């Protein structure tokens, strides 16, 4: 997807980040920021399953690989903004916090949320990925050809 032409690209990015980040981190950063936002539940947190699909031969027809647990929640701030959260796993507070962060990102708190929640989550995710990538890189095979015995 072209980030520049997609008006939803930024929101898609932060929602995806919140879905994949550890529940404990999302909740901790949100609590530390301590925004006082009044809200009502549009959809109380709900645990469910999503059927994950793959493709035959990685590129062909879709098939059902199996399900994963997902928890979702939606909130509406009393000032009007609606936030949605879909997160991996079964943590209801994680889903509701993601929805609140999504709503807060549509208010004038956006800059604070970006700096105090989203940026640290991005940094941690990148650090975890690069630590793993570095270990994988150390197991990369360097082939060499044995010198043949004949002249």
């Amino acid at each position, binding site marked *: 997807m072209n980030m520049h032409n997609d008006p939803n690209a930024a929101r898609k990015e932060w*929602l995806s980040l919140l879905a994949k980040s550890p529940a404990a981190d999302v909740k901790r950063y949100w609590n530390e920021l301590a925004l006082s936002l009044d809200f009502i539940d549009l959809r109380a947190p709900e645990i469910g399953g999503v059927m994950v699909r793959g493709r035959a031969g990685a*590129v062909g027809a879709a098939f059902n690989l199996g399900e994963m647990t997902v928890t979702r929640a939606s909130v509406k701030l009393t000032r009007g903004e609606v936030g949605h959260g879909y997160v991996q796993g079964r943590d209801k507070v994680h889903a509701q916090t993601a929805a609140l962060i999504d709503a807060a990102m549509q208010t004038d708190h956006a800059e604070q949320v970006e700096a105090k929640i989203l940026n640290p989550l991005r940094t941690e995710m990148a650090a975890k990925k690069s630590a793993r990538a570095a270990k994988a890189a150390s197991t990369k095979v360097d082939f060499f050809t044995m010198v043949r015995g004949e002249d």
Partner: protein
Amino acid sequence: MYVAVKGGERAIDNAHAWLAEERRGDSSVEELSVAQIREQLKLAVNRVMAEGSLYDPDLAALAIKQSRGDLIEAIFLIRAYRTTLPRFGGSNPIDTEDMVCDRRVSATFKDAPGGQVLGPTFDYTHRLLDFKLAADGELGKCPKAESSDAATPHIMSFLDREDLIQSEPTGPETPDDLTRTPLELPASRALRLQSLTRGDEGFILGMAYSTQRGYARNHAFVAELRIGTVAVEMDIPELGFAIDIGELTVTECETVNQFQGSKTQPPQFTRGYGLVFGMTERKAISMALVDRALRWKELGEDNVGAPAQDEEFVLYHSDNIQATGFLEHIKLPHYVDFQSELELIRKLRREAQSTLQEAAE
């Protein structure tokens, strides 16, 4: 005659209480936590997720603890839990091309672009018991190297570019789902792949091995085996666009198999495919071999009568929960059924004896 039998409630309650105590084992030994199972018995957790058909490491670890390490019992617990979950929808097909690979090897191309990465593998270990693990062994330092952001394209795509490999046919974006409609034959490839990926590892391995030993041999090479993480994306109706709803570890195996051609078509390699939750490479390779064997009809091959070619045999016997349910039910009370068998055999013996007596007189 129908006789209802009641009773045994007290015995059952007491059996469950004893089970709980036996599960705990010697209480002077520290109790195992769910987190310890999740982190330190990860491959068991992966198998339970794959065959339980539900990706949730915490639940799989809990199931392993509850089942005292009986993985089929754990898979049963996960399958039962799965049925209680409301289905939010289906994901977009995961894009394994974008996998962040922990491991990626090819048995066909030494110089695969992106390189061959061994990852945390048992391969090349000497399979000698490591007694350091029984002591409180210090963990050695894991070396690191500079990683590159170079893409890791599927190796099959290079063969595809030269038209040397059969292309994969497309299909409906919403595939048939055997958790929604009972499996009927002949099964689409989508249904076959769904059953194989949740099928019993031992059964799928045995079937795959039979093809290697000559029962519908299909000359498989592992073109690529990759293990790593992929994002799962789903369209969210209330948003009107797709977001990532999580990240999974999966194992993917693509095999390149014997080629075929005809008077009108130049020879091309054929392919088999395996994709399984978690780090489960034995299962993924097995799945690819069995997938390939089951494709005989669409590839215009002969049915040589091999078990791995028989989709009814493979698909109806690969599910360990169906199998164990039917197998284990025969140990439950069948007193009335057996009573009628007893009466029948006594009657037959009486008749046989009187015939013998008559003949003797």
